């Protein structure tokens, strides 16, 4: 390049060379992005590699406490560090995890769990019945009850029978106590657990954690499942904003992201480098009508409101078509779900007739309180307002902040919204549909319903229990205060070279955060 006879490189040559180098780097950077993996890896899972997962939510209050996960990022971390006795698998079926079996006695008041033999904590100590007892003591500590404690109110005491057997003694019969044990917030930890040195039995061990920013976990080589996990390292990153989350995936700064907006599913999926994982869930976003307040104290008004909804259009407009139509009933994955009841569809004429019968021949005005409590909530309120207008229901939308929504007036709103994750019927009822439920937002108090639920709770025979559940659901179908128009799908996205993730019905993102399954295909 240099035409000067001197041996030393000229200033121009140095500059030019530097520029060429810079340009070359830039070009190689471009080409490496261009040659990213466009086909999903196949064949047997490969070991090794790091998976960087981006999730929205969480903040400075994030913690690695196994028993009080709050944000999405908390849950993702807890699921990979700790394991409970049972868990809900990708089909929303209750499967053994640290216990090999959990069985009730005839009265459903005493449940016996047998631990999986040979499982070791991250520090090498074996899991014993004493650890299980200590774990439940920590969760239900009356001075500092953890988030899992709410569903364990009926638990009187936990007793270690021998090194591998634990007995759960209840104060009330519950035929579905195993369901409560299957929560991810009930991970078993050693008796001397300290949250600063988080030790569990999960597929990954904590290496570093920076609340609100990121955590780095490494493979637990002593994990009890064969071959799993495949990854050497798992990095979970917090994002405060969904736009930033999606952009970081598109620019390959993370390998996988959880919960993408359904409206953008097609667009993100159109990128040849990205795979979209869509899972049906039993999560629901109901409108809640207070059955003890005017005008909803009249069952005809409630039914009229339910008939005013065009459910198919709701799914199309609010969820961009990615969801399942609802029938005003929750717990769609419950084995006892009343699937035989006819699907309710929009019937404006009938809705008008019912309103006229109830004393509103000219329609009625109603205020609907909404808040961005979940993606799609405010949108659903708007679509409902539009649809109900045809039946003479004039909806005035009042949008408040999420903090206001869940503030002092929460559970007092006459007509509002809420959202719930996938649950089976009986646990859902105990949280939201009994007179003494903590979140009875519709103020539902039906004697016959409560009696049926009580009987179902004590019925150990599954077929008979399912029959009772279906009967109870029929009452809600005919009189309840929920308008349940649909169940949104859960959508995640990841780079094509990530493999092993499967659709998961629990509503938790990215295969229920079970990154033990994930592996990285060769990038070329």
């Amino acid at each position, binding site marked *: 390049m240099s035409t000067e006879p001197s041996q030393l490189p000229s200033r121009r040559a140095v500059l030019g060379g530097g520029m060429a180098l810079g340009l070359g780097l830039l070009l190689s950077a471009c080409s490496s992005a261009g040659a990213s993996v466009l086909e999903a890896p196949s064949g047997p899972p490969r070991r090794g590699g790091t998976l960087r997962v981006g999730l929205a939510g969480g903040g400075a209050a994030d913690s690695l406490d196994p028993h009080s996960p709050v944000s999405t990022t908390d849950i993702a971390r807890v699921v990979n560090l700790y394991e409970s006795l049972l868990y809900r698998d990708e089909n929303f079926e209750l499967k053994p995890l640290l216990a090999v079996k959990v069985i009730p006695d005839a009265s459903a008041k005493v449940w016996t769990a047998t631990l999986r033999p040979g499982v070791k904590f991250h520090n090498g100590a074996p899991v014993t019945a004493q650890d299980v007892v200590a774990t439940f003591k920590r969760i239900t500590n009356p001075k500092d009850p953890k988030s899992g404690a709410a569903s364990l109110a009926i638990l009187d005491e936990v007793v270690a029978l021998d090194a591998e057997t634990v007995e759960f003694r209840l104060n009330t019969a519950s035929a579905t106590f195993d369901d409560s044990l299957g929560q991810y917030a009930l991970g078993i930890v050693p008796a001397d657990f300290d949250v600063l040195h988080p030790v569990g039995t999960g597929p990954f061990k904590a290496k570093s954690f920076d609340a609100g920013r990121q955590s780095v976990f490494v493979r637990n080589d002593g994990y009890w499942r064969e071959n799993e996990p495949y990854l050497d390292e798992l990095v979970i990153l917090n994002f405060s904003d*969904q*736009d930033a989350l999606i952009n970081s995936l598109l620019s390959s700064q993370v390998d996988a992201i959880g919960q993408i*907006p359904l*409206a*953008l599913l097609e*667009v993100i999926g159109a990128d040849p480098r990205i795979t979209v994982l869509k899972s049906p869930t039993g999560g629901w976003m109901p409108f809640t009508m207070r059955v003890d307040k005017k005008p909803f104290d009249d069952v005809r008004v409630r039914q009229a409101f339910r008939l005013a909804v065009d459910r198919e*259009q709701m799914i*199309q*407009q*609010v969820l*961009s*078509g990615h969801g399942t139509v609802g029938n005003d009933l929750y717990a769609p994955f419950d084995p006892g779900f009343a699937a035989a009841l006819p699907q309710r569809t929009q019937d404006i004429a009938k809705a008008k007739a019912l309103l006229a019968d109830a004393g509103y021949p000219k329609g009625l005005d109603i205020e609907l309180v909404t808040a*961005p409590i979940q993606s799609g909530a*405010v*949108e659903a*309120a*708007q*679509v409902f*307002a*539009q649809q109900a207008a045809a039946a003479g229901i004039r909806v005035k*939308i*009042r*949008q408040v*902040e999420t903090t*206001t929504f869940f503030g002092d007036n929460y559970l007092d709103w006459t007509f509002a919204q809420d959202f719930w994750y996938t649950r089976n019927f009986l646990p859902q009822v105990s949280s939201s549909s009994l007179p003494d439920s903590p979140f009875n937002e519709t103020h539902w108090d039906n004697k016959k319903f409560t009696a049926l639920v009580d009987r179902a709770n004590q019925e150990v025979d599954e077929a008979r229990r399912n029959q009772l559940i279906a009967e109870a659901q029929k009452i809600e179908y005919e009189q309840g205060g929920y308008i349940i128009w649909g169940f949104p799908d859960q959508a995640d996205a990841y780079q094509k070279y990530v493999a092993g993730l499967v659709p998961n019905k629990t509503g938790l993102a990215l295969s229920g955060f079970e990154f033990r399954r994930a592996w990285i295909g060769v990038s070329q």
Partner: protein
Amino acid sequence: MSAAAEVLERPAKLEKKPNLLMRTLRQKQAKIGLALTLLVLAIALFGPLALPWLTGSTSTEFTGRPFTSTGLFGTDNLGRDVFSRFLDGGLKLLVYSALATGIGMLLGVVLGMVAAYSGRRLDGLLMRGNDVLLALPQLVFAMLAITVLGPQGWVLVLVIGVTHAPRVARVTRSAAAAVITEDYIRASEMYAVPRWKILLTEVLPNITGPLMVELGLRMTYSIGFVAALSFLGMGMQPPNADWGLMINENRIALVVQPWGVILPVLAIAVLTVGTNLLTDSLARASANINVGN
């Protein structure tokens, strides 16, 4: 504008200077500003009338799935026509901003003139009180009021208007302070003209220049505030179409269907730039008699 007529007229009435408005409009940037402002005003005023025959749908009707390319500018986050919502979304924003500006100007001018004219103790009291209010950021104050009183139109207008007042009062006071020492004020005082009449007929006409500038500025700010509060979900409530709200609703799809954000952003930007240019020219015209001559 007939320049010839102006020239012919001038020798006849030598003492009459071209008025403030004329001097303003003779500047090039004022013409541009006026054109921009009128353009957005026309969209906001006549847009709602053009629905649904122009776009084929009303602003709340569903025309397709969310964020698809149905229609001229695609659909928004709920599958409604972006163009229809855009045409329908400006009127309330402008009316609210104008009302808020009006309230702010009225309160501020009265306070400022009273403070300047009464002097000493009342002046000190009013202006120090003013300082306290000035210390509060306007938007934060507005958000507080709306959280307490609920997102209603009148709250929005009132709170933005009231928070404008101290700023307007400050300008008015300094403008009026320069005027009240003039001899014609003394003369009126000697004739025992009531104070309010002096303020109204002697002081006010002589401070219109700075006040017009302030009016323009406050209008620009009002537009910004109303749009910002709607964006934050505290202004206009869904399913109303509103430019600020539109930006919020459609921003997640900025990469996919940008029109839902670009159209309202453009309209607000053009409007504020337009009113700013106008105000700027007005300020020049009022500061310098010879501008535009």
